[in-house]
């Protein structure tokens, strides 16, 4: 069981992910914007992993990952993106990896993909 910070501006998706994560007995803290996510994150000491959307209004996911890696370099961050118009999910997720994301999730994805990404991320830095 891990404490996960979930950041996404899409409430419906957030609710779905929350249910999926709670199914695996993870504890989840939600944020609807990058700004709120960073505020809740603090120094990162209270979390085992972060799952963040990339394309969000205001502070986007790559900026969130960049800042979180600066504050807590060892904490794994999972990036997820479905793209928007001409902005492809591949490019968004590649960018996330470049700035330090531990694993990626291309939307839409299922519980199996979520588990695999989370296991990969937590495998890099074991759950405390």
């Amino acid at each position: 069981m891990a404490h996960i910070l979930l950041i996404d501006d899409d409430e419906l998706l957030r609710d779905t992910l929350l249910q999926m994560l709670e199914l695996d007995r993870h504890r989840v803290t939600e944020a609807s914007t990058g700004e709120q996510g960073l505020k809740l994150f603090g120094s990162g000491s209270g979390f085992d992993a972060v799952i963040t959307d990339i394309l969000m209004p205001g502070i986007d996911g790559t900026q969130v990952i960049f800042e979180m890696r600066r504050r807590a370099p060892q904490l794994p961050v999972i990036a997820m993106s479905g793209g928007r118009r001409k902005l492809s999910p591949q490019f968004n997720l590649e960018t996330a990896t470049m700035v330090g994301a531990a694993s990626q999730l291309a939307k839409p994805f299922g519980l199996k993909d979520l588990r695999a990404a989370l296991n990969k991320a937590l495998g890099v830095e074991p759950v405390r």
Partner: protein
Amino acid sequence: MNTTTFLSLPASWCGKLWRWLRRAGPHEALPVAECAAVAGMRTLDQQMFTELGRAVGLSEQSAMQLLTQVGGLRALSSRLIGYLAEGNKQSEAMQDGIELNSRVIKELAAFVQTLPQQIELEREQLKLLMLEVKGLAEMTDTIRGIARQTEILAINAAIEAARAGESGRGFAVLAGEVRRLATEANELAGKVKDDIGRLVKTVEVNYSGEVEARTRHNEAEAKRLGVLTRELDASYVDMRQFYAMLIRAVSQNNTELDRGIGLLLDSAQYQDVFKQIVDRVEPAMASRHVVLAELIARLRGGQRDTAELDARAAALMPDYLAREAEHRDPDAAAESAPGTPGLRIELF
């Protein structure tokens, strides 16, 4: 004797020297046990071997570290190349959006440019309409005046009629006047009718099917351009995000590359330390060579007393160690040998 030759000498150097001396001349040779000078040189040799071995070991370790660092830099560089290729694909995909934006801006500009002409035309038509209406209003005033006078005359005619018989002539004049006014009123009424007809025609022209079609076209165009403008805005937001993300990722990668190159340079500079260790062997070798040459000369000359040379040979190793100690850094003690001074990095 160069370093390579020196390094190739076997451990039983003293014995070989003895055999060589026997072959070299008829001099009475010294027993090996009495060859203290040679023993001193051997001690120096062993110490130099130790130092050189340490330098080789450190160099090997450092070379492996360099290889690892270069591998890391190559991985970073490859990752950047791959990412920029993906960024290029993304940029090409966004090119369509840029072209669309350019077209939308042109169309928007063309539409906005026609608006002043249309507004001027409609203003002129409205001015004409106002003039017609004004003329009609003036005619209405005239008709009203005539009607008022007709009314007064009619009253007067009624009064005069009451006096019928006596003043028939006066009534006839009044009746004539009424008729004239009536005729005038009739003519004006006809003119008003004509003017109203023209006015209606002007209004019909101004708001005819053509004008209506033009208005509808403008409405549709404005709606279409409104949708395109929103797309333009969205496309601009995407492009701004694309470049912000691209720059963030490339900056991050370059920061890592810069850090890696810095570490690589540190390692490369560390390589010079090994060269310095090897270089310091050379003066020790030169001193040893001097002692050896003198020893050989004395032995060849049949001199048995080598005490002074023994002392000089014995001092070779402590001297070498003393010079080495000058190049040790007490703060850089190795983890494997705590308390032992480590290498002092002297940058080139």
